[in-house]
């Protein structure tokens, strides 16, 4: 079974620029999550999708961050404009709730550096 795919793996931009990350979840997984992981910390949930609908985006800084999952499969996370404090690893995860486990499968992440 293929895992969660993310691209790019690394991105370096200057502050005030825009950036987008892409995630392809495990086939059949209805739930998709985006996390932000700042160096030395645990992942922090930004947004959760169920199919193509948003379940929770309470931690998403909506003035600069946006995310979509139009067809209920792939997802993109965008930052516009980026700030220095956005430097982090952005992790995508997916899960298939209802199998008796809440296990989330994570992708390798995109490491963003904002200069």
């Amino acid at each position, binding site marked *: 079974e293929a895992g969660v795919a993310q691209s790019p793996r690394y991105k370096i931009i200057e502050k005030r620029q825009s950036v987008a990350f892409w995630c392809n979840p495990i086939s059949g997984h209805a739930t998709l999550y985006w996390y932000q992981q700042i160096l030395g910390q*645990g992942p922090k949930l930004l947004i959760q999708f169920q199919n193509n609908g948003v379940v929770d985006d309470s931690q998403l800084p909506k003035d600069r961050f946006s995310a979509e999952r139009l067809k209920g499969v792939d997802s993109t996370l965008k930052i516009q404009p980026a700030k220095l404090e956005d430097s982090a690893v952005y992790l995508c995860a997916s899960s298939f709730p209802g199998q008796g486990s*809440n296990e989330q499968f994570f992708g390798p992440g995109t490491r963003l550096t904002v200069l």
Partner: protein
Amino acid sequence: GESVGLHLPTLSVQEGDNSIINCAYSNSASDYFIWYKQESGKGPQFIIDIRSNMDKRQGQRVTVLLNKTVKHLSLQIAATQPGDSAVYFCAENRDDYKLSFGAGTTVTVRA
């Protein structure tokens, strides 16, 4: 703030010894807990989970213990190997399959 945290940020263990990683949580309503392992440059990888109606669960070389009275979770790794060097996170499930992660413990295995 975060409701799940680990007691120690780092743990150094001799190869072959047993490791114990601790985690405290504050949300007594949490009903599901997961331990993840994260190696450098990779995403977190599921190790083992436990539901709140259990106090112990065993996997391959790993055991998770849950003490709901003091809201404490621990991960025991038997016969620690170099490949066990990583950052370990405990995470609690609050609702609707959302996980809240602690800060993590970095485990270093000495040869």
